[in-house]
């Protein structure tokens, strides 16, 4: 058994993640979480999200992972009691004060140590275990031998990032944002200074380069997720509370397919390559495996610069309804009759289809779908469901 853990920046993204087979969702409330510029969830929305997830037998984790200044504790006790009362499954924590408070309040919710705590060894994990923690979200720098050691000697649930952006520094050990933007990175204000361009001088103050980058490539564990599982990772975490619904759906769908193939012994290199191509196309930055299998070098760094990132218009629409062989779709990007497209959803792998008819919402024939969020209809007998997505077909198995 594994857990596929997805981010949610708001309720819409949460619903997409649940639809796309996430076993658990993580997000932040309006306070105390490390994505202060994500929409985040109100108290009512946290309750709604929890009820929705639980109705589908899925779990909800709430980030309470800022490093607190004294003034930030205001309201924390009431917030934790509320989370406990509505029955969220766990909170993710970095600050020992929150763990102590949870113990003091005898809360039922599980406590997970956030990656901000940078746990890389069994002794640090044991420290947290003795504080009542049930799970460690490993430091992004954890290597395979660290995972094996921590799992075998602590028995704790281990969670690790499997896909998404990486911090260049140890999480929690970077305050470049504090210096350059006055935004506290350890309280949700990270301005991604590692993606800024620096001038690089040697110790004699002679210029080496006026185009220096700290930034590293994103993480992708497509090639190593099986080894992660065998090493002891239980929860496979996708980064990106601020990512698009298309990104969340695509990444979840791809990893779920990989796990399904793994569990029925049908996984092969060609399929992994196919999935890798889809994931690479979906993200707008290059990726690499980073620390798990080897120490990262210059090939894991990102030297092109943030302005060179690319985006595409692959995401064509979302299925709203499939009834009487008429598929209703909300458009997201331009497409037209004759295009080769691909439906994907949690109940299907991929459905290739050549657009041979298009109608507007009143069933008037059209040739192109060119208005953002316009409602279009396709007459076709396809096993797609509401929430499934449509994209340009680039890759095929």
């Amino acid at each position, binding site marked *: 058994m594994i857990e596929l853990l997805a981010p949610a920046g708001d309720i819409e993204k949460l619903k997409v993640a649940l639809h796309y087979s996430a076993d658990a969702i993580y997000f932040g409330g309006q306070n105390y979480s490390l994505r*202060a*510029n994500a929409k985040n969830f109100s108290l009512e929305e946290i309750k709604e999200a929890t009820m929705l997830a639980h109705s589908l037998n899925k779990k909800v984790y709430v980030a309470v992972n*800022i*490093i*607190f*200044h*004294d003034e*930030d504790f205001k309201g924390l006790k009431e917030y934790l009691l509320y989370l406990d009362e509505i029955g969220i499954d766990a909170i993710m924590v970095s*600050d*020992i*004060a929150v763990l*102590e408070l949870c113990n003091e309040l005898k809360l039922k919710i599980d406590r997970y140590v956030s990656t901000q*705590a*940078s746990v*890389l*060894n069994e*002794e*640090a994990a*044991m*420290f947290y275990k003795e504080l009542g923690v049930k799970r460690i979200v490993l*430091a992004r*720098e*954890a*290597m395979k031998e*660290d995972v094996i050691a*921590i799992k075998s000697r602590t028995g704790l649930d281990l969670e690790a990032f499997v896909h998404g952006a990486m911090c*260049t520094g*140890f999480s*929690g*050990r*970077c*305050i470049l944002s*504090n*210096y*350059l933007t*006055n*935004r*506290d990175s350890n*309280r*949700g*204000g990270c301005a991604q200074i*590692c993606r800024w361009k*620096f*001038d*690089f*001088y*040697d*110790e004699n103050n002679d210029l*080496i*380069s006026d185009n*220096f*980058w*700290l930034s*590293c490539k994103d993480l992708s564990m497509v090639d190593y997720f099986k080894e992660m599982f065998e090493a002891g990772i239980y929860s496979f975490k996708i980064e990106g509370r601020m990512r698009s619904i298309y990104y969340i759906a695509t990444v979840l769908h791809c990893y779920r397919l990989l796990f399904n193939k793994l569990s029925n012994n049908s996984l092969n290199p060609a399929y992994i390559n196919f999935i890798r191509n889809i994931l690479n196309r979906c993200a707008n930055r290059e990726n690499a495996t980073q*620390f798990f299998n080897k120490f*990262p*070098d*210059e090939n894991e*760094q990102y*030297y092109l610069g943030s302005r060179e990132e690319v985006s595409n218009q692959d995401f064509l629409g979302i299925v709203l309804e499939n009834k009487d062989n008429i598929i209703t779709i909300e458009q997201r990007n331009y497409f037209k009759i004759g295009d080769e497209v691909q439906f994907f959803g949690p109940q299907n792998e991929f459905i290739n289809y050549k657009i041979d008819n298009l109608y507007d919402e009143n069933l008037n024939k059209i040739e192109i779908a060119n208005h953002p969020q316009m409602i279009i209809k396709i007459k076709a007998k396809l096993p797609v469901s509401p929430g499934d997505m449509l994209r340009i077909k680039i890759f095929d198995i």
Partner: protein
Amino acid sequence: MKNSKILVSVKNLDELKEYKKIGITNFLFALKGFSIGYPEFTLDELLDLDINVYLNINLVMDTKKINEFKNIISKLDFVKGIFFEDLGIYYVLKDHHIPLIWNQNHFVINSVSINSWLNRVTSACLTNELTKEEIKYILEKTSKPLILPIFGYNIAMYSRRYLLSNFNRYHGYKIVNNGYLKINPQNQFKAYETENGTVLFYHKPFNYYPIINELKDEKIWFYYFDLTHSNIAQYHKIINNEISDSEERFLNHKTIYKLED
């Protein structure tokens, strides 16, 4: 400020005699192989110095590194205290007699967490991203005397990656292990790379000496001077209030927590 409450880091052992002449006997040394960003010293070098030796162990440690550390624990008896970043260090030393100082960079920033740690360890070393009012509040609320950094360079980022040599190798430049990363003249970072990763220090020192008279001396165990980038002349400048190019932005300005929509 009594000399017995002053803790100093130096860049080489030859400097110790100068400090000892003026009555300073407490020194903090980065332990070779287990630290990053500071001049490192071996246990053998520190063994018979006739001073009070405190060790700075500021690596975030993986399994291999902490196992290496376990092998030297029996040699630490002469040490007066250990500043630790990784909580694994606390865990392996908690049943030993060595005084421990919680020094998790950027985490020692509220009185509640500090008091929690003070139930376990001897003291804690305050983080530099605090305002003056926050420092006063923490000193008021905490249960044991703390260590207050007075002068030094703040670590702004710590990475396990080889950020300088990776870049130079990628571009075919000569490999260097330190240098400066600059956004503009006001915002520069001194970068150091070792086999344990890379750290960036803000290029200007902080100097909290001018505020110490506003703080409760009895709540401070040590006033810590990191002079690894300078020397005893700098120490005299500090205590004579002759430092002019320091940077105290965090002391005087809160950082933003909640961003506006």
